[in-house]
């Protein structure tokens, strides 16, 4: 802090020294002399080719300066609605000039400010500013404009039925997407800026009355605690605010879909939107929500329930299939029916490795293939799939390195980990599969069980923003499992999920007796 702020240099012109966040700059007021202000700003924006200082005079009498960052502001609009009316202003002497100028600018969003750090903030978000001779106030004009990606369907969370829009990198667009879904004024959006250099705008969105105050306060408190030089993606924030930083399980959900975000808001959760990334964070997160896909709620409930169970089963297959295979082949051959045992023994006759090594080789290869497929440019992608089919497929078994049952197991495991709708949870399964494989290679099924007990014990201790991770599963309350064990039809999901046990007010989310039937309709 010592070296910050102004230092008198070259007579009257102070020099600004940046050391830390813009938020911690001292509040230097604007000087009445336009030249001094300009000198300060020019020294601050030294070697910044994209900053434009445009001197002009209001109706050729009063000097003024227009300042903006090229590419962040809409220059056409500036010319038309700011520069032109000011330069052509008639009778500038009448009345106070500052008020006249504000009236002449035909832009809806106009702010006044009186300190130098405000200038930095305003022009960095694309608002051009005007400084006028002999005025200790400046005007910032809301004319930001920069290149945005157009909205498209999120690649990581595709649906067959459901909205196709996704969040983009621009915060304002994302807030508008949420606001368009939830129009109630109780949808609150608190803004916080994080990151010493990046000044990333972060929005904490929640519905007042549905989200617990303690939760909102906790989220804001943890966000404000973050002191780092830059936030470039939601992952930075996620790792800085989770409850158990060393746990492999995701403690915040992320989504690119406004409909998912809106649904979570309606359940009383908090959404964290971050400027510069299409991913928003959802807090708190419970284990059951890792296995819920947005489309579950759009499709008929029978099929959603079935698919949800399929997902649960494949979650365990994805986690345990290779280790169970290793355990049975190494320790418990008697469990297999004789004919199957013979087939497997026959196919393994040529294989030089024990089952554990074989499984490890194949799983690592599969992970490598997947990683290659994600990182490679699309043109080369086809080559990866061809090679992949060779590595995990007929050629692998023909070469005598792996047995064909192992290829089956790896393939099923691979499919199972794609079945997890949340990418973050899929990563966790892939990660945990390996230690369990080692355990099963050492202790057989007992090792697999030890892996499970350890993971479940860990899950039981986990909390996400004070909400137990296994909340609904271990609570044993029937009304909590209607969105876990089944996907109840919408007319039966009449209460919000219970995130905090003590909270009972405002629990209903629909009126009573909503089950449709012909008699209740008014058509007859």
């Amino acid at each position, binding site marked *: 802090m010592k070296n910050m702020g102004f230092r008198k240099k070259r007579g009257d012109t102070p020099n600004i020294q940046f050391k830390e966040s813009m938020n911690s700059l001292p509040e230097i007021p604007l000087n009445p002399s336009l030249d001094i202000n300009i000198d300060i700003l020019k020294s601050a924006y030294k070697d910044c080719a994209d900053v434009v200082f445009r001197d002009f005079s209001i109706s050729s009498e009063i000097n003024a300066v227009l300042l903006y960052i090229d590419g962040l502001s809409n220059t056409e609009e500036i010319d038309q609605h700011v520069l032109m009316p000011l330069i052509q202003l008639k009778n500038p002497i009448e009345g106070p000039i500052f008020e006249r100028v504000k009236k002449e600018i035909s832009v809806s969003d106009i702010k006044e400010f009186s300190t130098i750090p405000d200038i930095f903030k305003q022009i960095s978000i694309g608002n051009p500013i005007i400084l006028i001779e002999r005025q200790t106030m400046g005007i910032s004009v809301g004319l930001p404009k920069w290149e945005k990606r157009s909205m498209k369907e999120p690649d990581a969370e595709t649906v067959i039925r459901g909205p196709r829009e996704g969040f983009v990198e621009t915060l304002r667009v994302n807030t508008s997407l949420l606001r368009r879904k939830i129009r109630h004024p109780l949808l609150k959006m608190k803004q916080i800026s994080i990151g010493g250099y990046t000044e990333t705008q972060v929005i904490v969105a929640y519905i007042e009355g549905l989200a617990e105050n303690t939760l909102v306060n906790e989220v804001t408190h943890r966000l404000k605690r973050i002191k780092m030089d830059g936030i470039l993606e939601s992952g930075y924030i996620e790792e800085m605010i989770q409850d158990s930083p060393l746990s492999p399980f995701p403690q915040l959900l992320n989504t690119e879909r406004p409909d998912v975000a809106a649904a979570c808001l309606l359940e009383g959760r908090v959404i964290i939107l971050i400027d510069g990334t299409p991913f928003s964070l959802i807090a708190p997160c419970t284990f059951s929500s890792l296995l819920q896909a947005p489309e579950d709620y759009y499709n008929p409930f029978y099929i959603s329930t079935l698919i949800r169970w399929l997902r649960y089963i494949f979650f365990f297959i994805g986690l345990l299939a290779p280790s169970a295979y290793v355990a049975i082949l190494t*320790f*418990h051959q*008697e*469990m297999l*029916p004789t004919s199957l045992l013979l087939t497997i023994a026959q196919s393994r006759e040529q294989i030089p490795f024990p089952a554990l090594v074989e499984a490890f080789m194949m799983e690592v290869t599969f992970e490598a293939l997947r990683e290659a497929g994600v990182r490679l440019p699309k043109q080369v992608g086809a080559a990866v799939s061809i090679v992949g089919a060779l590595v995990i497929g007929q050629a692998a078994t023909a070469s005598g390195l792996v047995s064909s049952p192992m290829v089956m197991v790896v393939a099923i495991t691979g499919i199972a980990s794609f079945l997890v709708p949340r990418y973050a949870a899929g990563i966790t399964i892939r990660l945990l599969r390996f230690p369990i494989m080692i355990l099963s290679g050492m*202790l*057989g*099924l*007992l*090792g*697999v*069980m*030890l892996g*499970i*007990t*350890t993971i*479940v*014990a*860990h899950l*039981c*201790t986990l909390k996400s923003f004070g909400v*137990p991770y*296994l909340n609904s*599963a*271990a609570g*044993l309350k029937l009304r909590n499992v209607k969105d876990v064990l089944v996907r109840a039809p919408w007319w039966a999901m009449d209460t919000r999920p219970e995130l905090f046990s003590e909270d009972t007010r405002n629990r209903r989310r629909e009126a009573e007796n909503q089950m449709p039937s012909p008699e209740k309709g008014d058509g007859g």
Partner: protein
Amino acid sequence: MIEKGRISGLELALIMYATVSATAILYIPYITAQHAKRDLWLSPIWGSLSGFLIVVIIVILSRYFPGKTLIEYCELILGRTIGKIIAFLYLFFLLHDTSIAFREYGEFVESAFLHRTPMLFVTGSIAISCAIAVHGGIQTIGRCAVLFLPIVFVSYVLIYIFLIPDLNLKNMLPIMADGVLPSIKGSLAPHAWLSQYSLMSFLLPLVTKQQKVMKWGIVSVVASVLTMVLMNLGNLFLFGDILINLQFPVFEAARFVSVGSFFEHIESIIIAVWVLGGFIQLSAFFYMVVLGTSQWLKLPSYKPFVLPIGFLIILFSVWTIPSFEDMIRGMGTTVPYYFLTIQLIIPSLLLCVAVIRWKKPKSFMQ
């Protein structure tokens, strides 16, 4: 209180059920059968007497001293010095009991499938897993119990459902051919196991609805006794007189299951599922030792104690038991008297002194 977490009455019942029954279904049938022969299913019913008695004593004591465990009110009742000594005695017994439980687990796993793995490795690996649960506190153990025990329960019921065609009800006749005495002799081991309900005193202060602890305690004892009785009956129906020679009859039973000629030899799965119950049992024991020790030493937190006590438990499990045969012989002879002395006499003594020295608290019920 050191422990911040709370459990529900159901969780209390489940934890105590696992603590008593997990190893009971392994060892009790064999030990009981040595004396009781065909009447082995009666023995747990006699044994339930000490279970009920101890639950009542412990619950009444907890009404005298709400929010305190046996270690804490021992000192209040008997004064500082004697209280500390008796509490230490109880605590040391608990450590011993816990290490016996770990050893039972280890011996069973060794004889069931890991014949040549060193015992330390088997008990040590589950101790690490339990340490995570213990570190998480009682809430973690309670949640694990709610998640795991239904799986264990269903799979054990399934064994006997699959075996219905092989069950022969006539195997239990004649009932009490040699009078009541053999079944009472055989009830020594069930007495020992059910006396472990005295450990409930560690969990009672942590239950949210205090009025219902008596009900849940009794429910838990009934469930344990029923499990032992039904398990013994099932084995008796299946094996008849050869039951006396079977070390782990439940798993011999699992070996018999064969459905559609592909679903057979499920004993490995049954053992693996049993580990879930064993995990709850060992975690609960482990937790009680850790909690008791830190209460005895009046420490602000029990978490730093988890690993050192885990070490001690594993060491004790090696030191105190020379071999599997000695362990089984002890369970049929000395261990029940040892268990009953500590777990029945100490609480009864405390209750007597408490009744004489302390007035009935206002919140006294039942």
